[in-house]
């Protein structure tokens, strides 16, 4: 009897899953060297989905292996075969550029949990595309604003030689008012920065701005700390995120970095998020996890207000951004990018664990630089 009951319960569960009214496709990086970021994105997103407990909502998760062609293939499958209503989750700008334009052209919604390249903010903006994270330049702009307010007069700047690297240095320069002691583009994936550090030492700079995401940043910070050059460093959050700080070690202590979120931001939603995330996954959340969580909250808030099949109503509901963001105040600009405060954080040690603490606000209510190019 019990067996029968269980079986029929399972059947019911299957039936409801199969008839889920809303299907969401989460494409993110779950294997290879960049998997850490995708795993955080997924875990943050799924935390909010699980908390909501809606049984009419199904999330299909797929691994893009950090390869653009694989991402395109998965997007095709999700659209054609799984018939998803909405896509989200891509970490990398180049993958987003491969997937987003054709997905939105086919009438799907795309909510960005991280990547938000300039092309999609300006001329290529789309009514169905919402960036919940930021516009890519934002954190670099904030670093520039911080450098100006910290009275840096002669900053040395460096980034990898690829589009996001160029956007980064341009973003920094947009808000930085001092002189440049030097400007270097490094090789993508470079692991040894001895040559660059020697140039910094010889340049007479009074500070250094760098954008080197992932393993590149770990290498740079370790080598910089060991080089004896002790100019103040500033950079965007990517090299100081929770999941890579432990690999950098004490070399990161005291470094200022800019972020749209931190775990000590004081608001109810954030306090709940940090606690629930820690309880569920047994590690501290990162910026990617926070952005994933916020994206899911936005999605859920819009689902409360409108049917996803009624595209205009759903779009309007998304645009209202009526959710309790872990970043506090949050609204969308006309091009569907956040208008939000960007903070300055400092790397500190809590017990044995390296983490960040907010020490100030770099820019208030920042939108982005490409707003005027967006005709929507």
């Amino acid at each position, binding site marked *: 009897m019990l067996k029968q009951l269980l079986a029929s319960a399972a059947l019911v569960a299957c039936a409801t899953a199969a008839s889920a009214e809303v299907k969401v496709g989460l494409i993110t990086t779950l294997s290879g060297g960049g998997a850490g970021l995708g795993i955080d994105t997924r875990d943050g997103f799924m935390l909010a989905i699980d908390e909501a407990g809606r049984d009419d909502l199904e999330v299909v998760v797929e691994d893009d292996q950090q390869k653009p062609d694989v991402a395109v293939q998965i997007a095709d499958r999700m659209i054609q075969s799984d018939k998803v209503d909405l896509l989200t989750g891509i970490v990398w700008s180049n993958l987003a550029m491969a997937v987003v334009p054709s997905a939105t052209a086919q009438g799907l919604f795309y909510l960005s949990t991280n990547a938000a390249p300039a092309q999609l903010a300006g001329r290529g903006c789309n009514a169905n595309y919402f960036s919940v994270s930021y516009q890519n330049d934002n954190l670099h702009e904030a670093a520039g604003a911080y450098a100006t307010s910290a009275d840096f007069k002669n900053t040395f700047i460096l980034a990898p030689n690829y589009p996001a690297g160029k956007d980064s240095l341009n973003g920094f320069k947009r808000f930085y008012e001092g002189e440049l002691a030097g400007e270097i583009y490094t*090789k993508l994936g470079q692991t040894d920065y001895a*040559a660059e550090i020697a140039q910094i030492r010889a340049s007479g700079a009074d500070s250094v701005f760098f954008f080197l995401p992932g393993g590149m940043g770990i290498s740079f910070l*370790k080598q910089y700390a060991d080089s004896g050059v002790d100019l103040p460093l500033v950079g965007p959050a990517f090299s100081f995120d929770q*999941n890579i700080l432990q*690999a950098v070690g004490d070399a990161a202590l005291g470094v200022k970095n800019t972020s749209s979120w931190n775990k000590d931001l004081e608001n109810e939603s954030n306090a709940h998020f940090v606690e629930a995330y820690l309880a569920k996954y047994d590690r501290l959340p990162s910026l990617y996890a926070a952005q994933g969580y916020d994206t899911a909250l936005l999605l859920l808030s819009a689902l409360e207000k409108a049917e996803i099949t009624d595209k205009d109503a759903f779009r309007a509901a998304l645009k209202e951004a009526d959710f309790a963001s872990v970043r506090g105040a949050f609204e969308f600009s006309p091009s569907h990018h956040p208008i939000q405060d960007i903070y300055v954080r400092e790397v500190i040690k809590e017990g044995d664990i390296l983490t960040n603490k907010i020490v100030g606000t770099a820019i208030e209510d920042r939108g982005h630089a490409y707003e005027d190019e967006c005709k929507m």
Partner: protein
Amino acid sequence: MTPILIAEQVLNGLQSGVMLFLMAAGLTLIFGVMGLINLAHGSLYMVGAFAAAATAAVTGSFVLALVAALAAAAAAGALVERLVIRRLYDRDHLDQVLATFALILIFSEGTRWIFGSFPLYLDIPEALSGPVTLPGGIQYPLYRLFIIGMGLVVAALLFWLIARTRLGIRIRAGENDREMIAALGVDIARLYTLVFALGAALAGLAGALVGAIQSVQVGMGEPVLILAFVVIVIGGIGSIEGALVGAILVGLTDTLGGIFLPQIFGLFMEPAAATQTGAALASMAIYVLMAAVLAWKPTGLFGAKS
């Protein structure tokens, strides 16, 4: 551009060259003795770095970490040789490329399975951290000098091993005539396992030494592997001397190209365009070097005539 800066950059080039030599020596030795092309050599470099990071995390000792890196890479090398590589010696290069390509997939995802997706932490030991002042007022990190020293010591040991020891005689004999040394009663199977483990240990040592100043993560071996290929092609495959010369050439070209090319372009271009063009060309510089060497000497600088 001051002479001090140039001297410092030459040291940097030397340091990266010495590390490349540790990788390339193993590759070229394995090719010279067994005629095997091993794409999975970069994975052994990764194994060394991960073993060192894991050991340092538990014991806090850098010396133990280096020992663990050597041991783990040698053990992984010996194991792989016994299970897989051994079956490939009499196959053509194509099968070797494919089988070792498969090994990369297994090693990389296997490591991620065991250690997770986030980079590991490995730091420079206290005694070697910070910069020292060299004659002429050059400030240079002590650890990098240590790496150069270690690399040169290992290179010297390797030359001694090959020139002066019984194992070295067998290795040289094996390079010249494989059937002959078998006929002389040398246990070929053991010799091969030993050589492979030796090459693996060198790669593991390089991984651990470099891991302390870089990021210990899955996939760290492949970029180095390709550089090591360029090195042994330039030096001449199978030649240890060639590997040393090639490694230092590549190290210097890569480092100095990255600094001077953007500045040369800066003489007649906008700064932003110059840095970008210079950086783009610098990333190709070592391949141009390789093409030039091959156009001049198709079997590399020290290669046997084929």
